């Protein structure tokens, strides 16, 4: 059973006298001022909770502190201040030995550049975590083979990492993380090094696996599309601080500030938005009374457009057979263009009874 992960006021400062730096940050000193003194505040006051079975994505540009944050979650980096709790256990209180124990059994990690051991076969790589735990050879090989099969690598057990393509290598990385049966999966830009098509495949596979495995996953990425695709919730980081936490639609529709907003500009909204986010909730009550096609709040934007094209009037959105909103075609176009305002009036003569407009030479 997965457990809840809580991060509470995490700070990480590199450089001399980190404790003093944390104190100054609390009192409102800016990151730039500290940098002038030679100390780097990588993570500042990060707090969040990841529910069991949730995919929590941390999104930010490089240098925003997301990788540092991730490494504090499993104790590879010791927080300068703050606490990490997993399943009720405060990881920041543990000694080196206790931390190693937690890392070997409860938390596993998938790396950006796969980090496969080149001197071990695929099977031995996948079994690595179990070997560290001291699981007997026969059992760990069985479980490693299972994990490999789960990741679609059955039959490759005896190969060597250098014989596999990038995507397959990362599947081995994923299998290695899954084999230990850890509750928490930390994924550090795990798909960034793959080319786009393979990245799509891996994302799909991860979502597919998650349906059955229900792990708690913290996923780091710098790609907002990926974040929106994978994340149940997304934390956006900038300069060491978390600037917004919310669902993909929250981020898209209600960005906390201009920075987040500028981020969302390039996002393919049609993939993120659903009927529920787009619909008008002021309804007369009879919009669904015809026999036309209707949508549900979960209907994706693309599909909604398709329905709207087939229906001569605004599309009715029903939840459990009850009307909850309507989507006029106008609104669809507005969301796609990121234009929330209603259409204005036009003084063009083409609206005045279809008169021909003569060019005045």
């Amino acid at each position, binding site marked *: 059973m997965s457990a809840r992960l809580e991060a509470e006021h995490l700070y990480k400062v590199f450089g001399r006298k980190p404790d003093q730096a944390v104190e100054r940050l609390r009192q409102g000193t800016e990151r730039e001022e500290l940098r002038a003194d030679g100390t780097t505040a990588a993570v500042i006051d990060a707090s969040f909770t990841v529910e069991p079975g949730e995919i929590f994505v941390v999104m930010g540009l490089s240098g925003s502190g997301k990788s540092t944050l991730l490494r504090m979650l*499993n104790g*590879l980096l010791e927080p300068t201040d703050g606490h990490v709790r997993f399943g009720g256990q405060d990881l920041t209180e543990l000694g080196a030995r206790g*931390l*190693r*124990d*937690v*890392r*070997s*059994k409860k*938390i*596993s*990690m998938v*790396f*950006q*550049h796969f*980090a496969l*051991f*080149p*001197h*071990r076969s695929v099977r031995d790589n996948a079994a*690595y*975590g179990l070997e*560290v*735990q001291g699981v007997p050879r026969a059992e760990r090989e069985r479980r490693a083979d299972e994990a490999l099969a789960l990741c679609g690598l059955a039959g490759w057990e005896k190969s*060597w990492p*250098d014989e596999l393509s990038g995507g397959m290598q990362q599947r081995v990385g994923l299998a*290695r993380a899954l084999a*230990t049966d850890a509750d928490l999966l*930390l994924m550090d830009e795990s798909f960034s090094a793959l080319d786009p098509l393979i990245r799509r495949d891996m994302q799909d596979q991860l979502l597919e696996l998650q349906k059955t495995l229900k792990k708690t996953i913290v996923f780091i990425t710098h790609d907002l599309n990926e974040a929106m695709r994978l994340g149940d919730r997304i934390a956006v980081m900038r300069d060491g601080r978390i600037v917004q936490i919310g669902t993909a639609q929250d981020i898209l529709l209600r960005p906390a500030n201009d920075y987040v907003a500028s981020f969302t500009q390039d996002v393919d909204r049609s993939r993120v938005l659903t009927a529920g986010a787009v619909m008008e909730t002021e309804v007369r009550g009879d919009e669904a009374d015809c026999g036309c096609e209707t949508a549900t709040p979960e209907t994706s934007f693309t599909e909604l457009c398709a329905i709207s094209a087939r229906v001569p009037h605004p599309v009715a959105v029903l939840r459990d057979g009850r009307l909850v909103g309507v989507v006029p075609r106008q609104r669809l176009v507005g969301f796609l263009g990121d234009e929330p305002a209603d259409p204005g009036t036009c003084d063009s003569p083409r609206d005045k009874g279809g008169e021909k407009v003569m060019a005045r030479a």
Partner: protein
Amino acid sequence: MPRIPLGDWVNDAVEWLRTHISWLFDFFKAVFTGTYDGIDAVLQAPQPLLLAGIFAVLAFWLRGTLAGVLTFVGFAFIDSMELWEDAMVTLSLLLVATIIALVISVPVGIWAARSDRVSSLVRPVLDFMQTLPAMVYLIPALLFFGTGAPAGIVATLVFALAPGVRMTELGIRQVDKELVEAAEAFGTTPRNTLLRVQLPLALPTVMAGVNQVIMLGLSMAAIAGMVGTGGLGGSVNQAIGQLDVGLGAESGIAIVILAIYLDRMTSALGTQVSPLGRRAAARARAAGGLKIWSYRPRPQVAVVGVVILALVAGGMGVFGGSGDSASVAGGKNVGEGKKVTLGYVPWDEGVASTFLWKELLEERGYEVEAKQFDAGPLYTALAQGDIDIVTNSWLPTTHAQYWKKYGAKLDDLGSWYDETTLELTVPSYMKDVDSLADLKGRADEFGGKITGIEAGAGEMALLKSKVLKAYGLDKEYQVVDSSTPAMLTELKRAYGRKKPIVVTLWSPHWAYNDFDLKKLKDPKGAWGSGDGVHTLSRKGLADDDPTLTRWMKDFELDEKQLTSLEAEINKVGKGKQQDAVRTWLKKNPGLVDKLAPAASGSGAKPAEAGQPLDVAWFPWDEDVAVTYLWKNVLEKRGYRLNLKQMDVGPVYTGLASGDIDLNFDAWLPHAQSNYWEKSKENLADLGSWYEPTSLEVAVPSYVKDVRSMADLKGKADLFDGKIIGIEPGTGEMNLLKNKVLPGYGLDEEYEVVDGSTPAMLTELKRAYAKKEPVAVVLWSPHWAYSDYELTKLADPEKYWGENNKIHTIAHKDFPDEYPQLTEWIRNFHLSEDELGGLESEIKDRGQGHEEEAVAAWLKENPGVADRMTAA
């Protein structure tokens, strides 16, 4: 710019290390020697070709068929050049050095990889070790470890350590950070991260480091040959010394063969042991397919092959060995298996005399080892006692510098060949140049140059400072410093082209056989009389082995004998010198018995030595010294001594009653006269062995103008008005205060400071170290006179009273019972220096170590024991 005395500091540091933690060096030496002997024994045991086979199988396994075949050919070639033993010596040396280097460098490298601070500390040390010229640390290594394998190993080690450390550090630091992080993320302990991830992945780089260690070690082999490690380095050295291009090439190529073999094997081993390497090799094989010359047996096959060959080798060693060591006939077995090490500089007469004695001594039952050195290390080693005898020391001129430095630690057993000369020499095609005087005005012809040898050589010093000046040539000619081989090469070159050349040379020298040369006459005698070729021994050999010492002292060869022996040796070439000596000895019958007469046995046990002697002694410095001295000497002659410490009165009583046999410390006729008078009917006086004893005031001899008590007058300021005394109330102090000072009118001026004997000595030591004036109350004999330079203040008025002598006294029947011993004791005498030296030795070693002190002192004063028990 002030002179920073770095050299002095280093000298002091080396001296301190040598005296204070010699146990540590002894330990290392034992480890090095043990490992080396072990490996060497293994490598030397099998037949050369069998071992070559084993090497070939290893190469077959590691690299394939072709490598195996080439290996066998290479090693067989070494064997055919008769360099096999040397090669194996070098190989053992190298293996030991490599093993030790790895044991040290891999952990240090790991440590440096994990800590930047360690890394930044280690780096300059490595630079230092790698760039410091080898000879600079070879000599201290000699001081610490003696000659032979340990010093060679240390030199190799110092040189070869650096790449091991560097490559290990580099390899570990190069391992992908993400991999290390991955290991940690799965909860791997730091130790396992190191063992399972970092080291396996760093292994190719580490193995490259091992490879470098071996290669650098091998390049040190030639230099290590200079300190008596032997092996191929020794041959190279010898070749250089004799300008033997052929031998040089052979040994050089043998080194190259070893180097290539070891290089290829270690790099292949790197592929074999590292998982990555195996992976790469497997891929290459898959790509390339199987070929006969790259076929490699499986490890099992290779192991079986090696084991079979090793078993055959072992079997042959067991059944075939030990046939050639003939046993020595009983009566002539003087050596009784004692080990003797002969050292020599590879000059012809040195090789000849050394191998002559090797043969002679082996016939007399000694186990003899002959080691070849450069002159400097040779003397160091002899002074250290690492070698026992050197038969080619050119004294007093050529080796003067070494003698000056080490002479005190050596014994000169006399010269065995006197007809040597130093000279300037020209080829005989140089007409009209017959004597040194003829060189005058012909500088143009010779390019103004005299081709010399090593700048530090005695001959060069003599030439520059005396000879040239004597003939007024010093303005005209420049003496070119170089080296003996370079000089000979130059001579050979000029000779071949019939060019004018003048070189420094000496006789006997083979150059006179090979070239037609003319020694320039020295009518003014500026070169001085020629050197004698002397035999030197380490201190104490005379005590340890008087017979051997006597043989060496009596050793003499005439020119005909020496040249015929040299000719015989030159005929057979290197490696068979001893065979040549045997042949030569056959042609000179009777010489063996003449040079090494096997006497009927020395130091026989006298009949009277049956029952134990009871010797009483007082706890006074001189009595402790003399009693333990006699104990040591007499026990070697078969006597047994029981020592009993007693007070003065009981000693006389005991002697009179016959309970005690001897006492060596009777102060007569004054101090103990009352005791003597009481029992003199039952006592025998065996005479005095020390005189005079005296009481006195002493000052350090750097206090000028104070030679007698009277000189103290008016100098109270100088001595701060004080005379440092001993325990108040002792006879001497009373005498000083009541008689001596008033007698010289000093009692107003000086105050006698009451104290204690140790306090007085401490004060003396302190003042002496600072060269401050000090006057102390002292008496003779006392060790202070041998430790410091002191002036006893004369007592012309005899206020200190008459002098005692120290007598040996015994029970009255003693002379009848022990006639031999009585004679020895009656003749016994020690000088003040001897007694003082012995006392200070005993003092240095501390109580409970008296016997060691005496033994050590006897070693330093080899004549004494024989003198005490002379027939």
